[in-house]
């Protein structure tokens, strides 16, 4: 890529530096009825997701399912191999008993829960990996991994027009309110 040409309008962005103002802005955008917007921050800002009107995460349900799956597999594995498929008498010990099964119950529960949380959180809920973001050429957007709170109002939103979005962000106190165009790579 040598130059970047400008295509359609994809978003309006604005920057904040103050966690209080950005939280107020999130509330304002949510109350104005926008749904397709996001705020990129260098660290999780306390209560920002609530101000944006986000529902609770569904991750705990997946975690529970993963844990139960792990527990059930551990139970099935130890019972089926020891007491059914391969009965081996070792010092007269029972072929299956929950007492000796407990360590493996616990470990597989934790393992399956952890793997489920990891893959669900990144892969399903955060939609990652996604190595290209259409906003990635914007400096303010990039600075969100440093010290910038970058508010992005997406053009897909039914309420979006470049003018209303810019006016809203300006009213909420955003700095450097800007219209962001699609970047077209040219050689």
């Amino acid at each position, binding site marked *: 890529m040598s130059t970047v040409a400008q295509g359609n309008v994809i978003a309006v962005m604005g920057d904040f530096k103050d966690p209080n103002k950005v939280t107020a802005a999130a509330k304002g955008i949510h109350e104005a009825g926008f749904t397709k917007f996001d705020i990129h921050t260098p660290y999780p800002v306390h209560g920002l997701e609530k101000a944006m009107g986000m529902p*609770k995460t569904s991750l705990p349900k997946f975690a529970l399912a993963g844990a139960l799956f792990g527990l059930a597999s551990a139970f099935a594995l130890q019972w089926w191999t020891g007491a059914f498929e391969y009965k081996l008498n070792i010092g007269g010990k029972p072929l299956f008993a929950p007492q*000796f099964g407990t360590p493996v119950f616990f470990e597989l529960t934790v393992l399956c829960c952890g793997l489920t949380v990891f893959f669900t959180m990144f892969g399903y809920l955060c939609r990652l990996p996604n190595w290209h973001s259409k906003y990635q050429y914007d400096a303010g957007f990039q600075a969100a991994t440093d010290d910038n709170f970058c508010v992005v109002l997406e053009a897909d939103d039914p309420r979006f027009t470049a003018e209303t979005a810019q006016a809203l962000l300006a009213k909420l106190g955003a700095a450097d309110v800007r219209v962001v165009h699609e970047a077209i790579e040219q050689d």
Partner: protein
Amino acid sequence: MAMEAKEQVATATAGHTNGAALNGYHDSPSAKPVREPLVLGNKTIHQITEDICGVAEQKATPKFWAALLASMLVAGAGIGALTYTIAVGIGVWGLNNTIGWGWDITNFVFWVGIGHAGTLISAVLFLFRQKWRTAINRSAEAMTIFAVINAAVFVLTHTGRPWLDYWLLPYPNQMKMWVNFRSPLEWDVFAVSTYFTISLLFWFTGLVPDLASLRNRAKSKIAKAGYTIFSLGWTGSTRSWHHYEFAYLIFAGLSTPLVLSVHSIVSFDFAVSILPGWHTTIFPPYFVAGAIFSGFAMVLTLMLVAREILDLHDYITLKHIDNMNKIILATGMMVGYAYAMEFFIAWYSGNPYERFVFINRAKGDYAWSYWMMMTCNVFSPQFFWNAKLRRNVWFTFALSIVVNIGMWFERFTIISTSLHHGYLPSSWHYYSPTWVEITIFVGTFGLFMTFFLLFAKYLPIIALGEIKSIMPGAQPSHHHHDDHGEHGDYYHSGHYVDNEEAVKKA
């Protein structure tokens, strides 16, 4: 701990009117200082990025290459000795019929134990909202992973035929055989592999946002590509943070019982046997306390070096060192209590074999090892009652090494003294390691340092996102402590205490 909590609540209410400037040190000057700040030097959020990313971005110094080369040479020697062992067989070790576990299992238990501090810092201290952990959790977690790799080296080669190690796993096979779930050794397979996997996922999850910071700053093509791939395209989206924070909480919740289970299960390898000196119910808590004890000592050894070389004085402060030393003192005394209780039970049980083993520990062939352990683990940490010594970097560094030596001897004492004089006097024997075992052990330190140096050079050694989130003024000031039960507020709490702490600095 309870007193501290009260103090936090008190300051939380007092400090909550502070302003919101990101470096809000100058706000609420009337408030009284309570604690030292977690990060020194009055830094802005941007400066933190500069400082931490700067470590990874600066050109590697000749000192770094020299250290890396030296570590790799030591690791290479260890790998050579390992290759020799695998090629010839474990007959090249000093083990004999009586003593079938020697340095191999000693080193396995030692390294697994080292790892425990990393998980304790990243998970247990997280759940207890100990915010000082943010400066050290990343490197402690990395240490955990490298330590478990080293532990795996021993446990996988001591089987004698490591190319058949996959037999340890339950999988359908043409021999129609299955593993024996009644054996604690099989539990160990599950415990250690789960521990490694979860630690790795936890560590990587923490790294993703910080790798994104490095990605956005990377100049060279290779660095950019590497950081891009591993940061998964993280953009700092609040819609992602929202799930991320919860995942982090779940990982902490999973790791906390996990870390307790791992060394408990390792101790079952001994406790479930019928050998006097091993067959005891105190082993699980005793092993866990010992693991945390030695792990914190190793964290300190590494941190104090990294703090000097990478100039992280503002992040890893005397307060951190003080706190870790307090944990060393506490766990050291737990270990001391366990030593005493073992002796008491040996006497109180009226079992002549138990009694013999313990008297033999203190007075027998391996008495030198026993007294080494007692001196290093029970007597030496007592110096940390003194606040000045807890804050003395050189003294802490020396003592952290002493503690690690002591903890190695603890494992050696438990294994050798119990085995060498068992029930049958005709089988009594003595064990000394050969050069092969010694070289492998020294080699694992080289491997450990190689991994750690590469980590310190190319990855963010301090958790950027986490340390930023606990800076004064980094969080909205309208939030109160009673919000904590609610969803999404787990990642950082009680930031007002920090604001308060900052005032002291100002």
